[in-house]
């Protein structure tokens, strides 16, 4: 079972929410879901659509072909009729082949045009053979007002369409969430108490989610005046002993870059989320790209110590966010979660697991506290203002007590101390999983990819008998592990215009996509078949 449904309309129609509600309904029946949410940078009008893909197996991407098109406006028909012949449409707004429902006039009579969404959700439930009760429960939990009218709308839609599929309950529900929600919850599970941000698509919903659910999660949110303020406020709160994360997209991270360097020098454990969007510059703000890899890897002047992690879906984002928080504090370095619009704003089935806050090395209280004590592995024990009176953090090169030095021996000793932390981190990385390998292990052709593009790559590799290699960390690059797997013909698959990971690893053959849209398995397969 693997079916896809596209719901399309204009901004303000509630398309995104319909996609999420459908995902939750299918989740209730034990199916795995992926929802691709496509929207433009405008508030009303334009064209929005969501593709809900439902499967009895795990899914991390959407396909070009869909099994049902649900059109709330004419644009949806014109732009997407190539995807399928199965269409349900609002006959008050749309001229088309397929099954007509006078949803707009019905909804208007009942008091709100937004009721159209429930009409079509009801229709989809009937079409896919799902009992109305499941839908009713999900819709009840998703809305705060007009519950009765929404129930009526579901019923009206349900009665308007005939059954085509027979989707039975196949398992127990898990959770359904966006990558951004997963990042927020993972970091909170590992002790994040403060989230600071300046709004920027596609990272903003981390702020929204935490602002709304902060009380429950024990997280306070601050929207600061700009990204420079955001990053420096995080440095201050970390210095005072509070686990802090900041979130932004490429342009905002560019403003934070000076502070990234400060984090390295002052050993401030700030976790940065960079949700990539199509650049350069303003680019295509609400569309996806994996083009900040070189930037994030190199961000910061001087020999900056940092860790860059690249989850590929929401579930990984949850666990990676927790790990990012714990590693940032253990090694006292800035840690980056490099996600993208495709992860941040798509909706996935997620199994959250047990993660917890791991305590960093704390000062033992003996003698006078020195913030930058030179140790064998480079990690100086932590103590905070409030507990001690001699915690001196600094951007300047320094002695162990944090006061300024320009003496050559002292300068070199501190540089070496910080480098030893990175060696210790690498040793820890070597003991764990740093590279994921999927597909046929002895295949002659290997696809090298990273982040969200794993979804399309794994699916196509399974179809064509290929291998997929994907680093989970991009700085330090786990070359010790990658070298073992990048043998034979290697083709890099990335959503950027130059092949940034391929450049770093010296891979010549590349399949790149840079139109702001992610690879679909079908689209990638076609490209591969041209060259294999």
């Amino acid at each position, binding site marked *: 079972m693997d079916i896809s449904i596209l719901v399309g309309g204009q901004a303000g129609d509630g398309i995104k929410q319909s996609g999420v509600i459908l995902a939750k309904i299918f989740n209730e029946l034990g199916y795995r879901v992926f929802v691709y949410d496509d929207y433009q940078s405008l508030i009303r009008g334009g064209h929005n659509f969501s593709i809900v893909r439902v499967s009895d197996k795990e899914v991390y991407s959407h396909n070009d072909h869909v099994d049902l098109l649900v059109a709330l406006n004419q644009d949806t028909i014109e732009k997407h009729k190539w995807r399928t012949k199965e269409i349900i449409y609002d006959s008050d707004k749309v001229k088309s082949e397929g099954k007509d429902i006078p949803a707009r006039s019905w909804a208007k009579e009942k008091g709100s045009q937004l009721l159209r969404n429930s009409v079509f959700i009801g229709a989809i439930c009937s079409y896919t053979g799902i009992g109305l009760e499941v839908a009713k429960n999900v819709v009840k939990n998703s809305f705060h007002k007009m519950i009765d009218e929404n129930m009526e709308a579901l019923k009206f839609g349900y009665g308007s369409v005939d059954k085509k599929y027979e989707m039975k309950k196949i398992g127990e529900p898990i959770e359904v969430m966006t990558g951004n929600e997963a990042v927020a919850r993972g970091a909170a599970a590992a002790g994040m*108490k*403060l989230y*600071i941000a300046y709004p920027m698509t596609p990272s903003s919903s981390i702020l929204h989610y935490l602002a709304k659910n902060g009380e429950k999660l*024990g997280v*306070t949110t*601050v929207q*600061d*005046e*700009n990204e*420079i*303020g*955001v990053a*420096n*406020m*995080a*440095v*201050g*709160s*970390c*210095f*005072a*002993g*509070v686990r*802090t994360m900041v979130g932004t997209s490429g342009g905002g991270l560019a403003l934070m870059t*000076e*502070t990234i360097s*400060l984090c390295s020098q*002052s050993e401030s454990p700030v976790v940065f989320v960079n949700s990539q969007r199509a650049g350069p510059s303003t680019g295509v703000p609400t569309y996806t790209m994996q083009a900040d890899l070189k930037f994030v890897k190199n961000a910061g002047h001087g020999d900056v110590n940092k860790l860059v992690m690249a989850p590929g879906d929401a579930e990984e984002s949850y666990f990676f966010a927790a790990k990012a928080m714990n590693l940032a504090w253990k090694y006292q370095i800035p840690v980056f979660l490099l996600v993208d619009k495709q992860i941040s704003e798509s909706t996935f089935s997620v199994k959250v697991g047990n993660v917890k806050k791991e305590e960093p090395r704390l000062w033992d209280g003996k003698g006078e506290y020195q913030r930058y004590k030179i140790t064998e592995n480079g990690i100086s024990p932590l103590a*905070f*203002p*409030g*507990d*001690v*009176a*001699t*915690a*001196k*953090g*600094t*951007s*300047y090169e320094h002695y162990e*007590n*944090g*006061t*300024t030095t320009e003496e050559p021996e002292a300068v070199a000793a501190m540089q070496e101390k910080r480098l030893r932390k990175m060696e210790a981190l690498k040793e820890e990385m070597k003991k764990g999983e740093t590279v994921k390998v999927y597909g046929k292990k002895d295949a002659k052709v290997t696809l090298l990819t990273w982040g969200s593009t794993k979804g399309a790559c794994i699916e196509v590799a399974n179809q064509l008998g290929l291998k997929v290699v994907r680093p989970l960390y991009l700085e330090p690059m786990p070359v010790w592990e990658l070298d073992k797997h990048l043998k034979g013909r290697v083709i890099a698959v990335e959503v950027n215009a130059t092949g940034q990971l391929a450049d770093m690893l010296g891979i010549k053959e590349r399949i790149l996509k840079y139109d702001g849209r992610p690879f679909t398995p079908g689209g990638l397969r076609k490209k591969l078949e041209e060259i294999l």
Partner: protein
Amino acid sequence: MNLETGACNTWCPGCGNFAILASFKKVVEELVKEGRRHEDIVIASGIGCHAKIVDYVNVNSFYSIHGRVPPTISGMKVANPNLTVVGFAGDGDGYGEGVAHLVFAAKRNIDITMIIHNNRIYGLTTGQFSPTTPQGQKTKSTPYGNPEYPLNPIKLMLGAGATFVARTSSFELEHMRQMMKEAVNHRGFAIVDVVEPCLSFFNAGDYIKANTYKMNHDPSDLKKAWEKACEWNYTTEGKIHLGIFYREEKPTFGELLLKGKNLRKS
């Protein structure tokens, strides 16, 4: 309590910063004597001559980067409201590079104190004009005279909603101590503009000494504060009023945001 760090002081002989340092140390001693815990005091600085002050006071400190002192200490205060946080900045640092942060810290009335070493010149970069350098002043980057008008930071801060705005002079040790103490004890955003000469690049000491007057108006009178602020626009003429221009009590950002929580202890 020993406030010496043993770090070698590298300010120019005769610099007003020595007076600021001495006054601030007195304030710390008094605060501790009055019951504030030494451990709960944190200071921070940006980049410039002023910034070295963190090396010279044995309290918790953070030597931040240019212009970013307000967000740095705001982060500390949000993390742990028990802390008393005092930021030091120069005129280039606070009124130039990081002016947006200063405006927003004042706007949200976060309970922090900013002390500005305002010598009206860039000192550590060897003498370029700053946001408060008078128009016409010859500096290294304006050898034929500064083509810009100076910013009046008192007016800026009053406009931004600062709830404590004061000015003092590095020639007035006792007054400086008083202003700093009042600022630190103020519940909300406090700023003290310390007018001082730069002996190496803009020695306006004689002018400052000859034109300073102590104010004595009701500091809750915003109109009066504005009038007094307008009497000197950081030019080469006018009355340099010293004292508290404006003081107002209203809920702080931390109180409204945290509602009694302490993130450090949660």
